[in-house]
């Protein structure tokens, strides 16, 4: 658990798949294969280590290349609905046709810009809200007795035991005009007519903050829990009041957790589709939704691919910041 904030993404995947890989290499056909391969000069260890990289290659890099390819194609009414990049001219010239019109289109059409900026805004605000809600939660959990700690942590991850979709639908039941909140408020006589919450940005924020909160709480908890509490005693001893000690000691020392939590919330929230689709109104302009519409409604695969590549490029920047922090942190930890 405490590793979350400190292990770079690739290594983390490697850790996840190591037990699986170990099981796998015990199977006789795999063993036979390994023997054959090792005769060619590869060691078993390097093969085990390579499993996650093979996984990333197959399920991340290959799809990425396919999407990249489609993004440079032209839309046609055909099956599949895009042109090939490579072609033959006069049966002897291999030609590569790169169509950058899709990119020009999404840059020029203000719809995409607005959707991008709005997604960024929604993700940023949601991340901030998650941080504001999640920090006190993580702090509280990290500072209770060990027995309570496990119970509270269980409660934080308990929602994962039911389907994500189901939980978002549950929010519809809570927020809609004749939903739980409005019914209670009206029966108490606090309001006369229902407050419209569904299909508003408010509902989208509620959905995102609710769904991504555990991803904020976990890394924060991990950093706060391993903090040395004598540092706080030392601060008090030097004349620092508790609140100031929190600002000067606890907060700076939890920055790795804050950064990790923010990245884990921000990055998926930018591309979020299900929550704005279900809780937000038809006017909710988010890039994930635009992508969906291009792909399924307009069958504009090349434009949709270009949008996907653009999201990826925009997200690479925060990921690089994240990795930079981790590298710095690993340095300082030594």
């Amino acid at each position: 658990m405490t590793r979350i904030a400190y292990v770079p993404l690739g290594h983390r995947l490697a850790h996840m798949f190591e037990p699986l890989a170990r099981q796998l290499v015990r199977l006789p056909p795999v063993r036979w294969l390994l023997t054959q391969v090792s005769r060619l000069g590869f060691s078993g260890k390097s093969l085990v280590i390579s499993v996650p990289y093979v996984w990333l290659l197959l399920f991340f890099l290959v799809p990425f290349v396919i999407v990249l390819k489609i993004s440079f194609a032209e839309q046609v009414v055909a099956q599949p609905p895009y042109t090939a990049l490579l072609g033959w001219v006069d049966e002897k010239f291999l030609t590569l046709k790169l169509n950058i019109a899709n990119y020009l289109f999404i840059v020029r059409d203000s719809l995409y810009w607005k959707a991008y900026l709005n997604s960024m805004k929604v993700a940023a605000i949601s991340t901030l809200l998650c941080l504001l809600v999640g920090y006190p939660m993580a702090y509280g959990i990290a500072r209770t007795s060990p027995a309570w700690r496990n119970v509270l942590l269980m409660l934080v991850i308990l929602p994962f035991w039911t389907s994500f979709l189901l939980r978002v639908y549950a929010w519809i039941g809570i927020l809609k005009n004749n939903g739980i909140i409005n019914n209670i408020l009206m029966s108490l006589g606090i309001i006369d007519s229902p407050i419209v919450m569904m299909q508003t940005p408010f509902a989208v924020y509620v959905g995102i903050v609710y769904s991504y909160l555990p991803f904020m709480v976990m890394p924060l908890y991990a950093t706060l829990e391993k903090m040395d509490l004598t540092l706080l005693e030392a601060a008090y001893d030097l004349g620092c009041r508790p609140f100031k000690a929190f600002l000067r000691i606890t907060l700076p020392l939890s920055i790795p957790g804050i950064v990790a939590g923010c990245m884990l919330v921000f990055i998926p929230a930018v591309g979020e589709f299900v929550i704005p689709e279900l809780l937000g109104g038809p006017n909710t302009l988010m890039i994930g939704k635009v992508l969906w519409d291009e792909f399924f409604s307009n069958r504009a695969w090349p434009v949709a691919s270009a949008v996907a590549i653009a999201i990826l490029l925009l997200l690479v920047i925060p990921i690089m910041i994240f990795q930079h922090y981790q590298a710095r942190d690993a340095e300082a930890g030594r």
Partner: protein
Amino acid sequence: MNEARRNDKYVPPWTDPKAEPYVRIEKVTKKFGDFVAVDDVSLNIYKNELFCLLGGSGCGKSTLLRMLAGFEQPTSGSIYLDGVDMAGIPPYNRPVNMMFQSYALFPHMSVEDNVAFGLKQERLAKNEVSKRVNDMLGLVQLAQFAKRKPHQLSGGQRQRVALARALVKQPKLLLLDEPLGALDKKLREQTQFELVNLQDRTGVTFVVVTHDQEEAMTLASRIGVMNQGRIVQVGTPTEIYEFPTTRFVADFIGSVNMFEGRIVDEDNDFVRIGAEDARCTIFINHGVAAAPNSTLWVAIRPEKVNISREPPPDASENCTTGIVQDIAYMGDVSIFNVKLDGGKVVKVTQPNLFRHAEETITWEDRVYLHWHPASGVVLLQ
């Protein structure tokens, strides 16, 4: 040593009934649940003292220190600092600073910022802060490491940063919890002298916790020996070593040979004790306030026992005999383990006065052990 202490007319404050103690600990008890960590401790510590709390692991030294710093509240009893009752005063309002057993340096701040942290809480002017920080870093010889982070320092350097951070606030009372625990022997000895020097120069009252008796002997003006949450004896290093009042203290400080016996003859100015396991009569040249026929113990330090192959002129008292079982050559001294005829093993140390002695005592030699009538300490409990 302190100027005042070198002066012949110096009267130690603890012998002066009029002296006002600087720290007064009155019947302090601390319980964790049912467990009594500090048990009814009363203690006076005077200004400019370097007081050592000495005791085995888990005897409550840190707990007592933490109550002085304000991290723990006494279950009962009270603590006065300079005449002020400290009950309910939080750590950040006490004129006390502590150096932690683990140093507790702030890992995200440079050495400079660590030392400046306490001063910044007092809202001092910027140049005042940096001046005092620089002076302090000079004092602990860390000026060239000012910009480094704690993890870029060696253990000894970290320890000095922790010391500087606690001292820079010029507290009235400095608490040090095993300040030299992490240092190697050489650096330890060097730092012990630095600490004593520093204490002389700054005039701060130090309370040092340690479980290393040698360290306590080197540093302290007085030592408080603790056992199972209680203070069992308070005294100067000499008093603690030469005049222990209980078997625990005699045994805990240095090594000792303990003989059990009964009084066979006594008067106001002497006592004769028949010690079965020593196989001789022990003559002590002062009176003892013990009930006749009660069991008591005589403690004799190894360096106060003479060892020879020839019997001494008067072998009737304070003299016993045995076979050399073991010899440990330590360079400056040799340690002999002598098995008495009754089976008890007695430890004797003798300085190696000559580089090469003709007639050295070796294994399996029959030897005579004898000591001066003033060497034995009679212990009633």
